């Protein structure tokens, strides 16, 4: 009793618990704790209660629903885990405990190992095959988006849409994008879009940025398989520029962020509008070119000297006539030249035949008074006067005697 009197502060239980609670929270705040799970129990409220222990002791743990939803594994007794949380005291029971915000299977190395194994396996199976990747549709009019309806991804996509004034139809399939339920929901949504909305041109599957744990759903096999099986081309858009998710490898196109995915899809449509515009322009240009070709030819024709200066046109005929006439004259001259040559030849031949030339060689022709040539002695009578023509001049003679043979008589001169 004596001892009790020396202490002036008397606590109520509540006061003590509250004081201890404050001290614990002040002393430890947020800590990381390694331990083994035991007595794990998930209540229908969604809150989880368990103990964390090691060889030397144990501590109670609580994980509230909205934190437990983000667990990437299904906790089981005996699992080695690392928990992040705050140390506190539950005054109702007077027991101290850890309020867990995050819990992972022991070591991040486990996740990395899982990722590498899955990647290797799916790659071997051909899920990442480049040849399998489909081109995005040429006319993306209806876009399916599988993401959280309240997350950053859909907001970013709609912002891009607004900025680009794109007239497209967007169908959002709301899913959870983190936590243990997320992979199944994402995979189911991809299947549902394919079976119930097959007229969707392209699917964007993704979420905004976050920690590796937050993004983990996109590294799950079930999501990869659903993407692989999708008939609609899929763009994987997980807001994490640096690391590639399994979904990035599997999708037809990988976008670094949801905004980029929207830009890709809308860009495709704008590209198409531009290419139609460009084609129309080329059609116009080509026709203009062929029309201007024709008009050039017309111009060139009109510029020709004959059409510009008719006298030049006439001069061509004048000149033509001159040339023709000139050649006619030449032809005529040559014709006459040819004739005189002929005449000279004929003359020569005539000269040869002419008796005059024979006479020139010493022969003579006797002619009766009438000019008839005396060829035999009987042609002339004795005493008849005849004319004897010589090479030069003539002799008037009187026939003395006619003789049948040359030796028998000679004309008397």
């Amino acid at each position: 009793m004596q001892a009790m009197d020396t202490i002036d502060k008397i606590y109520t239980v509540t006061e003590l618990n509250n004081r201890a609670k404050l001290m614990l929270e002040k002393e430890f705040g947020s800590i990381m704790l390694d331990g083994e799970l035991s007595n794990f129990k998930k209540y229908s409220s969604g809150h989880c209660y368990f103990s964390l222990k090691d060889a030397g002791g144990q501590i109670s743990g609580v994980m509230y629903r909205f934190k437990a939803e983000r667990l990437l594994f299904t906790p089981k007794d005996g699992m080695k885990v690392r928990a992040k949380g705050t140390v506190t005291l539950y005054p109702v029971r007077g027991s101290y405990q850890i309020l867990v915000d995050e819990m992972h299977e022991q070591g991040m190395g486990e996740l990395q190992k899982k990722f590498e194994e899955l990647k290797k396996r799916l790659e071997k199976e051909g899920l990442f095959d480049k040849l399998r990747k489909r081109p995005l549709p040429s006319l993306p009019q209806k876009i399916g988006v599988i993401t959280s309806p309240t997350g950053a991804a859909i907001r970013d996509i709609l912002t891009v849409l607004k900025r680009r004034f794109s007239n497209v139809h967007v169908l959002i399939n709301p899913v959870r994008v983190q936590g243990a339920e997320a992979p199944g929901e994402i995979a189911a949504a991809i299947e549902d879009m394919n079976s119930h909305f097959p007229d969707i041109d392209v699917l964007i599957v993704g979420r905004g940025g976050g920690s590796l744990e937050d993004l983990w759903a996109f590294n799950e096999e079930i999501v990869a398989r659903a993407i692989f099986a999708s008939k609609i081309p899929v763009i994987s858009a997980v807001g994490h520029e640096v690391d590639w998710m399994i979904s990035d490898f599997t999708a037809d196109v990988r976008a670094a962020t949801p905004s980029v995915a929207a830009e890709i899809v809308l860009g495709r449509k704008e590209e198409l509008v531009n290419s139609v515009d460009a084609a129309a322009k080329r059609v116009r240009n080509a026709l203009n070119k062929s029309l201007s070709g024709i008009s050039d030819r017309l111009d060139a024709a009109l510029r020709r000297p004959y059409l510009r200066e008719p006298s030049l046109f006439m001069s061509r005929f004048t000149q033509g006539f001159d040339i023709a006439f000139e050649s006619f004259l030449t032809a005529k001259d040559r014709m006459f030249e040819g004739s005189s040559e002929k005449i000279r030849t004929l003359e020569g031949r005539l000269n040869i035949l002419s008796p005059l030339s024979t006479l020139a060689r010493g022969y003579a022709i006797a002619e009766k008074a009438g000019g008839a040539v005396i060829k035999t002695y009987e042609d002339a009578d004795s005493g008849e006067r005849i004319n004897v023509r010589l090479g030069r001049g003539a002799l008037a003679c009187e026939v003395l005697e006619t003789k049948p043979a040359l030796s028998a008589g000679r004309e008397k001169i």
Partner: protein
Amino acid sequence: MSEKKTVSKKDFEKDLKRLEDIVALLEKGDSPLDESIKLFEEGIEKAAEMKKNLEEAKRKIELISKKSGLFSTEKFHEEEF
């Protein structure tokens, strides 16, 4: 509805191909004038029609909901962001 869409998409690609062919023909420049003009008219008409198809789609944002296996869509209120 979905059938019709698919056909029109296919038609669009066909139209695009035809437009490209027209451009090539005209640019080659060895068709006679009357034929060129015909091609020109067809090309311009096709381009206008295609642009109309492209711009035609209405901007619509919908949220899919699934209740006991049935799908329905409702307007998505983007302004809430």
